[in-house]
């Protein structure tokens, strides 16, 4: 019953959420084409580094590695940047939280939505790489919006779970950043599953982020819609993350103005 109230209140503030997204994007792309170029260029540069590293230093053969790698980087950037930005968003809006009664979820939600917009823009250079490497363009690419939605719900859940903690303790953002870089190496973003030693494979296999990542990357790299079982598992993870995150956020919501 209480969650109904929150949903209704969020619905009432939907124009606010959209305005916050626009403000985020305006700050990022303010008056300059550089902001826009950077969103597209940064993943390409990271990819180039990885291509050099993994095709000369650590050898493994993965056909059209740039596509594999870039798809992974785009996903990871979205995931990690949205989580950190969600955590920062409450503190950044402390003045409002002190003076205006509103459902505090609007800040993490707006953050994740602007992340989705950035991710969508970054799909442009991915398209260019697909064309440049002669990667077949399959209809499975049309599945991407669904994959992005699953990734966004999962990310929002994590953001809701972690952002109140960042209000209560200042060092949580740093801890989570370290945790995220560890998680990045436990997720097959730069490397294929096949090179993971058998002993460690279960860690990577049961990493929920891998499941979400593959739902995003399969349609791009393998040109196929992920099998229903994989999709089901990913949706399950996203649902659990969202429910737990929303519940934890609600529980701490009243305390936020006291600490922020």
């Amino acid at each position, binding site marked *: 019953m209480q969650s109904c109230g929150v949903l209704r209140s969020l619905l*009432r*503030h939907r*124009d*606010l959420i959209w*305005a916050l997204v626009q*403000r985020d994007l305006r*700050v990022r792309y303010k008056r300059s084409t550089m902001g826009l170029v950077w969103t597209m260029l940064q993943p390409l540069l990271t990819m180039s580094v990885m291509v050099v590293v993994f095709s000369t230093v650590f050898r493994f053969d993965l056909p059209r590695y740039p596509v594999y790698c870039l798809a992974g980087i785009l996903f990871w950037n979205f995931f990690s940047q949205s989580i950190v930005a969600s955590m920062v968003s409450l503190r950044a*809006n402390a*003045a*409002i*939280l*002190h*003076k*205006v*009664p*509103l459902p505090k979820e609007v800040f993490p939600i707006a953050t994740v939505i602007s992340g989705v917009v950035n991710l969508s823009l970054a799909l442009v250079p991915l398209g260019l790489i697909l064309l440049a490497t002669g990667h077949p363009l399959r209809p499975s690419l049309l599945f991407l919006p669904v994959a992005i939605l699953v990734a966004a719900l999962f990310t929002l859940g994590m953001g809701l779970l972690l952002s109140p*903690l960042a209000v*209560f*303790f*200042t*060092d*949580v953002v740093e*801890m989570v950043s370290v945790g995220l870089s560890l998680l990045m190496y436990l997720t097959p973003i730069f490397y294929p599953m096949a090179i993971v030693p058998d002993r460690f494979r279960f860690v990577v296999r049961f990493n929920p982020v891998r499941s979400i990542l593959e739902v995003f990357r399969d349609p791009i790299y393998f040109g196929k819609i992920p099998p229903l079982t994989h999709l089901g598992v990913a949706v399950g993870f996203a649902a659990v993350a969202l429910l737990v995150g929303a519940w934890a956020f609600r529980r701490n919501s*009243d305390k936020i*103005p*006291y600490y922020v």
Partner: protein
Amino acid sequence: MTADPVVDLRDVSLCYRLAKQRIPSLKEYALHWVRGALVYEQLWALKNVSLSLSAGERLGVVGSNGAGKSTLLKVISGVLKPVEGRRAVRGRVAPILELGIGFDYELTGDENIYLNALFLGHSRKDVESRYQDIVEFSGLGDFVRSPVRSYSSGMLARLGFSIVTAWVPDLLILDEVLAVGDMHFVKKCEERLAEFRRSGTTLILVSHAAEAIRRNCNRCLWLEGGQVRADGPPDEVLALYAGSSAERPGA
């Protein structure tokens, strides 16, 4: 009057927990928790405050600095949830705890009208329908198209007040906002308050200016140390309050 009260507080208490050692980091928190040495100083900003306001009542709140006035307004407006007691507020609340809250200084006045009203829970369509009225009342003219960072504090206050009061609320909460702005603007604000009075809006006004309370209120609450010292007609309560501050010169 048999109607439900607009504001109903029952035995509301609220305490800010100040850690003796400031514990802003999880690491330190864990260390102190393990040692069992986490000591908190409790600061009771409100203690057993009960208050009931019916539609159309206009309450002035007085008290020295740190008496809990702003905290009381935060509880009524729903920003802070009290630690103990019950809070019930009916209808549309327009809280002005600070003018121009949420203004983005890089955006124009125009854009801030939208942003600010959206923070207050209005929809974009709502704002569009009141936009002209807001700009007119603020008296900013062509300045609405300039970035807010170029505004004077008076202009900011005018814009902020114009936005919040563009809609007739059931309950209007004002914290010291009539103190800013020039005479002309204060007069305009009070005219608007008079309009609201005619539409039956309930008002809560915190002010250090006894005169403002006499003019705008028909009931007065004196808070001291988070507790209600007096509650009654403005003239009586203001006289008591003035008497007590005369006893403690400089307080």
